[in-house]
């Protein structure tokens, strides 16, 4: 398998992407990475260079206990289809939802691929690692999926845990976790597999997040003569939870376009209300934006046409660890913050001390105190609309920036 013989731009054009589209895409990616958009040509050169070496990562994509939502999400990447193209330049061989082959041919194809690219390929995992009944609660090709996962992870250069389910088990691990789900990094650690794991939590994952990791890998990764990547620099840019720092460094609330209404004490107390039509803050109907680290307000969804809060849906914190246990009830105005919640949260021991639960909890505590200091909420505040409304109306004027 070689890409030699045609230039990167010729191949892009063969796939219907102009050089201009490609540079626009690189500019957007630069912004995403927190670089100046003047870095676009550098990113472009780096991708083109890697492609012309025949050096883009070979990738294998496997489905654990998944709803296929992350694949669906990728299928919505349409900025002008270039994200697809870059993913395509991953030389993506196995992808059960779209691949041509089936059955034995799929299994054999994956095996041949892993042998050919041992030590060099990206393994992308979508879905929960199901360990119930010794892994037999998810079988693929007649064997427990966990065997397949371990087998292909051992020989991968890096594993990308795509979406909350792969990161920590997602909703599947919510109490009582009947399928005994877990995340990829916790599972691999338990098996002594040392391959680094990049975590991209969110339910589903946003295609821009995966794209930015791929580009980041290209920017920061050198390869030896055999094509084995040196992943040190990219691992250094992960936080203690294995997440890319540039994607999970601020909360939804930090960047929310409705934040001004929060500051003004202008809230939505009921769905479908006049306040919603005015685009007020969704905090009273359960928005988990203040405790959720993700860049949704900037990246948005489905070619940027909208995002949850923009449509009137409060954030449910789907990028948090064990997000269902941590955030439900989703319409609840305040959630319990304490060791109990954090302790039950299935926090991944593989990724160090400062667990997300801790960060989010601390942030919300600070936030809650701020709210209290601003007299927006009382100690015994409830979900009852009228009471909240009355309270906020009475105290709004005293409120300032939290």
């Amino acid at each position, binding site marked *: 398998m070689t890409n030699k013989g045609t230039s990167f731009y010729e191949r892009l054009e063969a796939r219907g992407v102009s050089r201009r589209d490609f540079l626009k895409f690189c500019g957007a990616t630069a912004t995403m990475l927190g670089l100046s958009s003047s870095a676009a040509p550098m990113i472009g050169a780096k991708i083109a260079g890697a492609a012309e070496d025949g050096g883009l990562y070979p990738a294998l994509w496997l489905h654990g206990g998944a709803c296929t939502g992350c694949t669906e999400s990728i299928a919505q990447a349409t900025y002008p289809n270039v994200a697809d193209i870059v993913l395509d330049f991953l030389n993506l061989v196995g992808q059960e939802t779209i*691949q041509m082959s*089936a*059955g034995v041919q799929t299994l054999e194809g994956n095996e041949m691929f892993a042998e050919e690219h041992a030590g060099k390929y990206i393994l992308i995992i979508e879905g929960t690692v199901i360990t119930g*009944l010794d892994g*037999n609660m998810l079988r693929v090709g007649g064997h427990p999926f966990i065997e397949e996962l371990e087998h292909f992870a051992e020989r991968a250069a890096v594993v990308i845990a795509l979406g909350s389910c792969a990161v920590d088990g997602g909703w599947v691990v919510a109490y009582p976790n009947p*399928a005994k789900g877990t995340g990829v990094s916790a599972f691999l650690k338990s098996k002594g597999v040392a391959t680094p794991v990049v975590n991209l939590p969110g339910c589903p994952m946003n295609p821009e997040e995966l794209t930015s990791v791929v580009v980041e890998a290209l920017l920061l990764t050198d390869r030896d003569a055999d094509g084995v990547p040196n992943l040190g620099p990219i691992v250094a840019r992960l936080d203690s939870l294995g997440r890319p720092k540039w994607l999970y460094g601020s909360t939804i609330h930090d960047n929310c376009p409705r934040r001004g209404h929060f500051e003004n004490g202008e809230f939505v107390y009921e769905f479908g209300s006049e306040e919603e039509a005015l685009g007020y803050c969704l905090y009273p109907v359960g928005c988990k934006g203040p405790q959720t680290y993700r860049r949704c307000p900037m990246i948005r969804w489905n070619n940027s046409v909208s995002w949850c809060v923009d449509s*009137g*849906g*409060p954030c449910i914190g789907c990028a948090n660890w064990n997000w269902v246990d941590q955030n439900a009830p989703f319409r609840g105005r305040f959630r319990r913050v304490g060791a109990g919640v954090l302790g039950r949260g299935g926090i991944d021991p593989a990724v160090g001390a400062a667990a997300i639960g801790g960060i989010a909890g601390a942030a919300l505590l600070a936030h809650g105190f701020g709210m209290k200091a601003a007299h927006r909420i009382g100690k015994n505040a409830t979900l009852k609309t009228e009471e909240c409304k009355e309270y906020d109306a009475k105290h709004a004027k005293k409120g300032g920036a939290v």
Partner: protein
Amino acid sequence: MAENLVLDPVTRIEGHLRVEAVVENGKITDAWATGTLYRGVETVLQGRRPEDAFYVTQRICGVCPTSHGHASSMAVESAYGIKIPNGARLVRNIYECAENLHSHILWFYILAALDYVNPAKALTANISDTIDLAKAAGTGISDFAAVQERVLALVQSGDMSVFSNGWWGIDPVAHPEEADELYNPDMPAELHLIGVAHYLEALEMQAEAARVMALLGGKFPHGMTSVAGGTAWVPDSTKLDDVLYRVKRVAAWVDGTMIPDVLAIAPFYTAALEFGGGCGKFLSFGLFNDADLDMNSRYFPAGYIDVDNGLKVDTVDTSKIKEYVKHAWYTSPSGLHPQHGETQAISSWNDSTFDLDGQYTWAKAPRYDEKPAEVGPLSRMLVGYLSAGADPAIKGIIDFALGELGVDDPTLLVSLLGRVAARVLETKLIADQTIAYIVELVEAVKTGEAKTFAEYDSHDGEGAGFWEAPRGALAHFVNVKNGRIENYNVVTPSTWDMSPRDDNGVRGPLEEALVGTPIDDIERPIMAARVARSFDP
């Protein structure tokens, strides 16, 4: 001589499916469908707030989360006695329409088409002949030359990416005849090229339909707004404009490309009218609510057909639904009505746990009136075709398609090709219907009749949401006590269609549809894959 066929994983579907079959004299004589994944959503929901099920149950399926969300909210509304306002009804109809457009386009072109269209053969197409053929077929003219170059570049690069190791043979370019055996050798290369070109366009069109859902629900998959009580999204003119523009774009493409493509390709696969029919019993809970929110007056009405009793529709009696588990990996009682269903997985696994004579799947076996029933577009279209009160457009488009294929007996639709055609034809009806609902909503906004959320203050009750996902009848059942879920149960379309044998040993619809399916090459069982994928699992 009997041979065993195993297809695992069945790819290009949502989820994890295994198919096993016995092949004798070139035909399948017995078959088993295995759902190989258990996650336990119903158990996770116990004790939580009923409103939270809307968010969690969408994660059952990343392709049809909207339908799960709707069925969940409807179940809670039914338990709490909430009647959603007219504005919410219209918003949900538009939302659900968009999901069907998205799902059907994705299914036909991205998931199923590669079993009928061979990209390797497209390389030998003559471009001007392709344009002539497209004109004659009345389908979209694409830049066929560019598409052909694109496929060539892909093949020559050696990077076959997701097309690697397919059933085209070892080297589809040097030895196209190997792949031809799997497809119809008489189908011209030009038609294969048209199919590939529109496969690429379909990627954009399914995304465009999904953007409509994102406008109404924040994102797709896993939207945020169709909560119990109505919808959190408040219609505004800017977004409605955007929605209408996108839906019209998709509708024009369905009319001008998808329908003519299928009518052009279908004549090469009429052999598929002879098998793949299944159990001959069809169930629909009805799709798209009318003002009275009654399942019998929906655009696609609810109904049940048992072809053995003639082509007539019976009213659905939801008390006749039961779930059997003798052949599934559960220890909970068999034959319960899902309102009081139980889901207790087996507690240990050994070498004999997977046993085709015993338990062999995680799917329960739902039965209607003690019999298996097929669900999905074929059921919806047949019920609509035979229901006197339904939109005449349903009967019209089926009769038109039968005429195009030169057949006059609607029972021939009970086949592999009929199931494929029903899904595609339904796409056009839904596209037209989406526009009608948007226009109705715009009028309601103008007159101030577009309230989207009903307040409620309830804490107890039993309820069910009967609805349709793109792939068939879907029901959520909830029992609530003191504002907490006491029991939650979901019966998905895939458990109907991919169901195992029931306690009487009667095969499920896919298993039955596989029986009689011709298998020429047991190593490349493309017919079995076509039949499995025709259910859109």
